[in-house]
């Protein structure tokens, strides 16, 4: 569990924080096992995939080809190393006109700029909330400098919840 005093990620069940020595016993929580899991576990437990990134100047044709080739529904768009947008299959379906010359225009013309992001230390519950709030199917994970380090999809969350339900059922017999 995360120490509420210093945020150190301790092994579950320890009595005192390994980092600051503060007692943790009194912080045992109430609530269902699922509530416990989604609020106490971090995005990191989803083993986020490395994101596929493209430069903002890349032509849409190339970006779509990458998505098809790799069987993914989402690209992160960067300028240099900085995340500037997200380009998804929804953008392809809703924004690109097949009868126009859109395929040669830069991906930055069609991406969702300044996307909502999360960090690997954020809780599963927060990711769920953010995805529900924004109607997102993918969310980029960034580090302290704003660089993308991973990506999660609603599929990852569903898989996680399915596994949690399995554990809950096993515990409750």
């Amino acid at each position: 569990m995360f120490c509420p005093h210093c945020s150190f990620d301790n092994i579950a069940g320890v009595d005192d924080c390994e980092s600051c020595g503060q007692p943790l016993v009194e912080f045992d929580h109430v609530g269902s096992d699922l509530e416990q899991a989604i609020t106490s576990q971090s995005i990191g437990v989803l083993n986020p995939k490395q994101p596929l990134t493209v430069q903002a100047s890349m032509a849409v044709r190339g970006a779509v080809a990458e998505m098809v080739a790799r069987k993914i529904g989402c690209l992160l768009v960067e300028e240099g190393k900085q995340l500037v947008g997200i380009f998804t299959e929804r953008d392809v379906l809703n924004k690109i006109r097949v009868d126009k010359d859109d395929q040669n225009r830069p991906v930055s013309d069609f991406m969702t700029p300044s996307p909502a992001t999360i960090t690997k230390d954020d809780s599963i519950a927060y990711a769920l909330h953010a995805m529900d709030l924004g109607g997102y199917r993918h969310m980029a994970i960034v580090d302290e400098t704003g660089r993308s380090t991973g990506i999660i999809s609603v599929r990852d969350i569903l898989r996680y919840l399915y596994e949690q339900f399995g554990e809950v059922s096993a515990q409750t017999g």
Partner: protein
Amino acid sequence: MSAKLPVLTSKDFASDQEIRWCPRCGDYSILAQMKKVLPGMGIPKEKFVFISGIGCSSRFPYYMDTYGFHSIHGRAPAIATGVKTCRPDLQVWVITGDGDGLSIGGNHLMHTIRRNVDLKIVMFNNQIYGLTKGQYSPTSPLGARTKSTPFGSIDNPLSPLSIAIGSEATFVARAVDVDIKHLTTVLERAARHEGTSFIEVYQDCNVFNSGAFYYASKKGVKEDNIVYLEHGKPLIFGAKRDKGIRVNEGNRPEVVELSSGISEDDLLFHDEQAPGSSLAFLLARMRHPEFPEPLGVFRDVERPIYDRGVNEQVQSAIETQGAGDLDELFQSGDTWTIE
């Protein structure tokens, strides 16, 4: 013969109630630090009172083994004023949040502060309504997308410290939930202040507004984003302590590099006891990312205290007019019988 007070520890202040905050909520740290501070006050346990309003933070009194009152939305300052005025021997704490204290309770908060009632007010600021699952609060930043602002907030946020200073607070401070040593120091200072103490605590709501204060709490990041206030010392910050705050010719603060021919003597020196509140207000207006945000005690001054004034007036009236009789008062003047 003198009675010996029992030696209290933080465990003496832990109640038997199950804590119902989300795991990893910043509230835990504030609770833990409070339990560490109170034993050192030299006050019997039964003399502490915690009064709260409504919200996640307001569950605080349940988790302290002291007297307490989980009261009405926004009205904790008013109820606490009554408690402290009737029982001046108690140390009375008010626990509130940015929604409880600044929205529905803004009026009560302002008047409690300006009266300088001897209360210790701790405002947990997480910039969101957590208990009701993620609506925007009076401190949510412009553009914040929440359940109640799906296209981004267009409300200009309030600064809790600006409100407190504008209400003539005599003690104003800011701390961060997970910065435990500093938070402990600030709570101790607030507890010992005579008059209203107002503390804003940056508190992470890890479910509905995660990371709102990472810039001020994450190691490796916060060093360039916060500046610790120390009375009589210059404002220096940065991972290498190579930056400072200077007030320029236009009386505006600016960030300067200490290596560029500017010495510490050129910087702004903190004076928490300045008679006027201008310096404290200037510091309270320094916001990330334009400035490092100050943490610590902004202002600590003396002013007549409301509850003492009330009790002095009562005592004086008793001495000159007698103790009085409530029933006699009730029956005096224009009374009539409705038949």
